[in-house]
């Protein structure tokens, strides 16, 4: 899923300062799973902003709504009937959601309430980790199911650097060395010989060398 974290409240207040009528718009998909932008967080943020406005003696209308998905047109149009009432939308979606809403209602400024972080996994309650770059050319089978591009600090494709010690990365003591994990997994599968082969340079054109990526599926079109 896509993870995000709410920006500091002071930063959010600064961004919405010029506006009187604000729609705080949550998203019940990925950002709800990572407890940053779902219905609950949207309600709490709207309350906090209302309270702050009141304390500051500022006249404002701050209302909330949460969509099932902010990145899909069919869901976004559910605010069609109310969007005219607002000077701005404060979106708690990921960057894709913020932009999708903005594309739908170009006359209303859409302000991001979250910092979109990464494509990751919920390791446990309150703990999310990045483990995929979305590189467009998955090579996980070569690395025992552990991605060195996402999880090695230097994106090494041919084995651990000289900073791997006791299974820990040199960059941070709380960071496992991805390459130690790869070696351990391949050893378990009896596939250590995979490491003897030189992995050639990555084809990054599948990720980001020719503008924003698109997927076009004729069979899915209506």
């Amino acid at each position: 899923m896509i993870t995000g974290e709410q920006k500091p409240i002071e930063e959010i207040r600064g961004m919405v300062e010029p506006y009187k009528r604000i729609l705080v718009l949550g998203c019940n998909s990925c950002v709800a799973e990572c407890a940053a932008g779902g219905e609950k967080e949207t309600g709490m943020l709207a309350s906090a902003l209302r309270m702050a406005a009141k304390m500051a003696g500022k006249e404002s209308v701050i209302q909330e709504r949460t969509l099932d998905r902010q990145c899909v047109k069919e869901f976004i149009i559910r605010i069609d009937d109310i969007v005219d009432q607002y000077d701005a939308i404060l979106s708690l979606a990921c960057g894709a959601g913020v932009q999708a809403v903005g594309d739908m209602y170009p006359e209303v400024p859409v302000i991001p309430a979250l910092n979109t972080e990464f494509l990751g996994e919920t390791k446990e309650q309150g703990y999310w980790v990045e483990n995929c770059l979305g590189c467009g050319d998955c090579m996980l089978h070569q690395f025992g199911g552990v991605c060195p591009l996402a999880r090695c600090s230097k994106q090494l494709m041919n084995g651990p650097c000289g900073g791997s010690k006791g299974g820990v990365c040199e960059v941070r003591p709380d960071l496992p060395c991805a390459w130690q994990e790869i070696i351990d997994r391949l050893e378990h599968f009896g596939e250590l010989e995979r490491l003897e082969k030189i992995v050639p340079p990555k084809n990054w054109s599948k990720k980001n060398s020719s503008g924003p990526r698109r997927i076009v599926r004729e069979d899915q079109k209506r």
Partner: protein
Amino acid sequence: MKEMSRLKTVLEKGTFAVTAECGPPKSADPETVLRKGDLLKGKVDAVNVTDNQTAIVRMSSMAACTLLKSAGMEPVLQVVVRDRNRIALQSDILGASALGIRNVLCLSGDHQSFGNQPQTMGVFDLDSIQFVQAVRTMRDQGLIIGGEKLNSGPELFIGAAANPFADPLPFRVVRLAKKVAAGAEFIQTQCIYNLERFEAWMQMVRDRGLADKVAILGGVTPLKSARMAKYMKEKVSGMDIPDRIIQRMEKVPPEKQREEGISICVETIERLKKIPGVKGVHIMAIEWEDAVGEIVERAGLLPRPS
């Protein structure tokens, strides 16, 4: 005919090679480089010029190499993949050869989070092994990545680094084998203080037949003080300093610790000379270039072949 790598010639003749390190300054002043170079002239076969080491912005390695070359020294251009994509890396390789630089050391580079630009984007488009392979293919086949032909290839003696002290030990030799298969012709190792571990690694290197395929230069760094030794052990990644070395430094009074550091370094070189497969030594006297002369003299490595 193109000028050859002196380092390569020394190694081919079977002479125990000596290289040292020169860190470019955090300045645009050429004199600093030339002054450091002057301390090393005649004491070593080639001088490694670091590439923004510890991820701190400094004068470029290419420029400092050129300055040293103009002063009659043989530079080894260090190039890290941290700061350049494959276009810039290959371009710098061509440029280095055009400037008469004849040795290159292909490295990953210290992670950007350790330096003075922690907000930068680390590039890591290629890793060090892919980079070695790219340089070797440029030189031997005249082809760049993707297969396009060069009108004239670079003339470079190709090196890489190895850290015998990082984990996991068995994979350290696999990684060396990959570097050799990629085209590395010489290897400079991480600083050696734990000789037992280094010897165990060298045994594995010989067992895999790698000692005949690549020239291994053992890395040494003279310790300036017991404090430096402790700092390196605790803070510098990939460093393995046994407690007995630290205790030995602590036993001498502070004003004699530099001398003790040099003695340890000389003794290490004496041991390295006896290890089969070790073809030379790489002295990294960090901001202490004037120690190199004494070290090579006491280790019986002077005069250097002309």
